[in-house]
């Protein structure tokens, strides 16, 4: 089901009423949170490691232009081709043209959020090419006709019962609630696709500038097949996903795996540095690296630059009580959860209600607490809120409400009188010391919560009375 045409609040409402979604999210996020916490807790120097990871990312971003040029030159020196794509359109055009000129009819893809970001599959399918996702989660949502709802677990919103029904319908698998037969069914279907594909498209976890190489981590082996079996490999990399040295991986791969899935390391780590060289039996004939900007260079150097440190581990999604409640689709963008509430307004400025995303957070800070590179997510969300207000994007009642609040807080006389009025008013509404219904807009509070009856005397009044008595007494 596509909910993207709905308004943000409707998407939230849909999600909150979806009991199956709740079950799926509760199961999966609890498992992720537990695994991460175990894996990070097992380190004797987790704090140091995270500081190092942050320093590596900060260093790379501070010299991004230089590192990207170095990466591109070294990729080309090894026989690869580099496309500098300033936006999704340029990236799509390059890949579609490549597919056309090489007579590509069938493409296999491993997980790539950057390709989701530029809606690559739709573009290639329009060009008449068959595209098959090979990451199990991505495959599930592809046959379901959906989009990923999590950075690393795209089908996190689905229960195994739903997946069984999908496989029964599309692959003729007998219904089961056991995972192994489902995996066997998907593997069987995908194996054929790998063998007949002319092109493999992958994402990139890290580009290594010094090596002219890209790193891909995965657990299923599908990325390794995607990047080695077809005759052409295209890797799509957001320009910020770079580190300078091979040694940096020693830190980055550890924090990524532990934060994402709670593994010490992912099952497969592939370092790819170009097409097969003469005499090599394996590997593609061509290697293309698409360096995708798509709004990132605009973020660099600004007040949201820190968001570019993100290594897409998904830990902030799992830890977020808002994400746990509504899942990824409600956010409406490609990236969801706390980091998505930052990236979507920045990278997809055309989505009409994305200014609301930074408000989809109680600012509890659970995201920052688990972020492997310590991105100050709540601070960035607060800045985006300030930007939205400056751009005049808020509910019409908010401005007068906040202005009266500020006027009252700035004027003790008004504060006293206003408080007195509110207290008198709410006394009329109270029943048994509590209020069950407040007038709009506060009826949104009492929809599901009682409100206390306000006291006859404020603390300040009590304090002043006490001080007077003390001085007189």
């Amino acid at each position: 089901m596509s909910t993207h045409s709905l308004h943000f609040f409707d998407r939230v409402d849909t999600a909150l009423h979806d009991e199956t979604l709740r079950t799926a999210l509760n199961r999966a996020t609890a498992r992720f949170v537990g695994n991460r916490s175990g894996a990070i807790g097992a380190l004797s120097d987790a704090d140091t490691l995270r500081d190092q990871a942050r320093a590596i990312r900060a260093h790379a971003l501070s010299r991004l232009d230089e590192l990207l040029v170095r990466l591109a030159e070294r990729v080309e020196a090894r026989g690869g081709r580099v496309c500098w794509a300033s936006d999704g359109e340029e990236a799509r055009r390059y890949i579609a043209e490549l597919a056309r000129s090489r007579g590509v009819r069938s493409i296999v893809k491993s997980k790539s959020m950057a390709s989701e970001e530029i809606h690559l599959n739709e573009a290639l399918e329009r060009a008449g090419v068959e595209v098959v996702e090979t990451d199990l989660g991505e495959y599930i949502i592809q046959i379901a006709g959906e989009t990923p709802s999590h950075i690393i677990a795209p089908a996190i919103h689905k229960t195994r019962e739903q997946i069984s029904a999908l496989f029964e319908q599309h692959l003729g698998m007998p219904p089961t609630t056991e995972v192994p037969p489902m995996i066997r069914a998907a593997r069987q279907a995908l194996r054929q696709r790998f063998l007949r594909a002319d092109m493999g498209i992958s994402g990139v976890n890290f580009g290594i500038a010094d090596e002219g190489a890209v790193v891909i981590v995965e657990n299923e082996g599908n990325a390794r097949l995607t990047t080695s079996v077809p005759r052409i490999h295209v890797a799509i990399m957001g320009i910020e996903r770079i580190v300078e040295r091979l040694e940096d991986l020693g830190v980055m791969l550890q924090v990524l795996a532990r934060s994402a899935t709670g593994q010490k390391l992912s099952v497969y780590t592939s370092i790819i540095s170009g097409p097969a060289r003469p005499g090599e039996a394996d590997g593609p004939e061509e290697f293309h690296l698409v360096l995708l900007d798509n709004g990132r260079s605009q973020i660099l150097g600004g007040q949201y630059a820190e968001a570019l440190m993100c290594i897409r581990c998904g830990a902030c999604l799992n830890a977020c009580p808002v994400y746990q409640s509504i899942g990824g689709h409600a956010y409406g963008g490609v990236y969801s959860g706390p980091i998505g509430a930052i990236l979507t307004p920045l990278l997809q400025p055309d989505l009409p209600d994305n200014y609301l995303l930074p408000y989809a957070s109680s600012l509890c800070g659970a995201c920052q607490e688990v972020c492997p590179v310590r991105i100050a997510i709540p601070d960035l969300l607060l800045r985006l809120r300030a930007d939205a207000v400056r751009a005049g994007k808020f509910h019409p009642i908010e401005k007068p409400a906040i202005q009266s609040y500020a006027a009252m807080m700035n004027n003790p006389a008004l504060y006293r009188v206003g408080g007195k009025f509110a207290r008198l008013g709410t006394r009329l509404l109270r029943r048994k010391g509590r209020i069950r219904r407040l007038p709009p807009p506060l009826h949104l509070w009492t929809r599901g919560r009682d409100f206390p009856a306000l006291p006859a005397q404020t603390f300040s009044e009590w304090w002043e009375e006490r001080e007077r008595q003390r001085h007189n007494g």
Partner: protein
Amino acid sequence: MSTPVGPRRVTLFVTCIVDQLYPEIGKATVEILERQGVAIHVPRGLTCCGQMAFNGGFRDESYAVAGRTIELLRGQGDVVLPSGSCAAMIRHLYAELFAHSPYAGPAAELAARTYELTEYLVDVLGVTDVGARFRGRISYHDACHGLRFLGVGRQARALLANVQEAEVRPLPNCDTCCGFGGLFAIKQYAISEAMLERKIHDVHAAETDLLVTGDASCMTQIAGGLSRRGSPIRARHIAEVLANMVDARPV
């Protein structure tokens, strides 16, 4: 009259929510501090830290309110708040709000002498037993801002461990947000209610009599949910427990 070593003196900033909604929390804070021999000063006209406007993205309005608060607290010594959230606003977010402004310096100076109540009692005064008594089961919820932006939690637990006759019971997921979040509770009421639902579930699972936390705002959210469900469990601010004032107000 000369006192060579004067008594400790603090400035008490009860916060707007305590002033208007829960004067008992303010009175309890006074009681606890005075019992420790601390002299209390409450500046006239002190209202709000400005967090509500800041949280909503209205920085100009927040700047005015918070700037006035900085002026009123200038030269007033240590400032104690019975709120991790408002203390975090001053300690953590004033730097952001007042960056590159004339208040940047005064804000940093104020941040350095601002304390959340339990932090002040345990870390500054070195007290963990304040002579509290409560017959019943107590569970503690870590309010997010105090926990994550001030590192508060250990102090409250140390204080609660010394409450006579009380059985302190662990609250499952005690560090998960209750869903209050300031304007979030209104603007995203449906998500806020869903988060509260889970918190209430955990509070019931704790098999407790009293849910205790360090922020009046989170307490309002949790108490509002418990009351709506007709639960016999009460929610109280930690100051009310420490001052033996659990029964000082209804509901």
